[in-house]
């Protein structure tokens, strides 16, 4: 009788332990999944941000080179120019804008603001590189 009671007590304690172990396994799994999920969610976003930043730097550098090219051509024939073929080949969605500034009273030179723009995704503003050059426009030379 006494032995039977002890056995019963042991059996109940073991069942409790097994239930606790099972529950503990589930919690471990959930915690592991949450951690993995967090890493999986954060890592691609971070990597994508770094990648985009490098793309932007590359665009800025090449846009500066192209702006210098445009200014060289502008000084030769004094007309607005389109982007070079090599630049459009790399950035087909890029465009160039010319804004003529007001000529100063004490000089024959007029400022021209040249901007190269590149559309990004709808949520982000376009990438832009701008350079201002002072050139002698035909109307100001007359």
């Amino acid at each position, binding site marked *: 009788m006494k032995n039977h009671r002890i056995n019963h007590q*042991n059996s109940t304690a073991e069942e409790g332990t*097994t239930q606790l172990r099972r529950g503990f396994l589930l919690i471990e799994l959930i915690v592991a999944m949450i951690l993995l999920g967090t890493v999986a969610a954060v*890592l691609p976003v971070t990597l994508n941000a770094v990648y985009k930043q490098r793309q932007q730097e590359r665009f800025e550098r090449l846009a500066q080179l192209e702006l210098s090219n445009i200014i060289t051509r502008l*000084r*030769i024939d004094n007309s607005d120019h389109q982007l070079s073929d090599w630049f459009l*080949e790399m950035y087909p969605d890029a465009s160039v804008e010319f804004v003529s500034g007001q000529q100063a009273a004490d000089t024959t030179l007029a400022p021209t603001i040249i901007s190269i723009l590149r559309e990004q995704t709808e949520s982000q503003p376009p990438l832009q590189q701008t350079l201002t050059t002072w050139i002698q426009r035909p109307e100001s030379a007359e």
Partner: protein
Amino acid sequence: MKRYCPHSIQQHARHRRGAVFAYVMAYVTLSMLLLGLTGTTLHLIMRSSQTDQRLFQDLSRIRDVESAIREDAVLADQIQIEDNIATLSTASRVVTWTVSDNRITREETTGDTRDALMRVIFRRATELSFITQSDSLFALRITPPAPAATSERNNTSTKTNTPLRAVEIVLPRPTNDIPTNE
């Protein structure tokens, strides 16, 4: 007296075995997932970093060449282009830019004295050439080698992955020069 219950111990052992197996399976699965993810990510990061490093080295060399050759072209009174040699002369000095395979050399001379020598070496298989665009413009064209494995994929993509292709540095030339490389 030592108490034990054979039936209960057997049941417990069976439970434990099952639990250990589940533990091992979960451990192996999670470890594989984590290792796979880490490996792929590290591989991507390293490859991307190498590509970017090469690209920025190219851009850096292009910038060095650009700043020097623009200054020479603006100051020059006379520019002659013959094959792969551009000679930019002023009254007092002569600057010769020579392209050969993947290297470009700038040599500045006054009379018979060499004042300066600059050599920029691009990556192997980079193509360099002078091209005459018009009577008043010429350009230095730099074409870095296309990445071998990803060239086809890169050719189709436009917005997301932009490889460095041919780059042109457009330069002015005095209008009295006669282009010789058309």
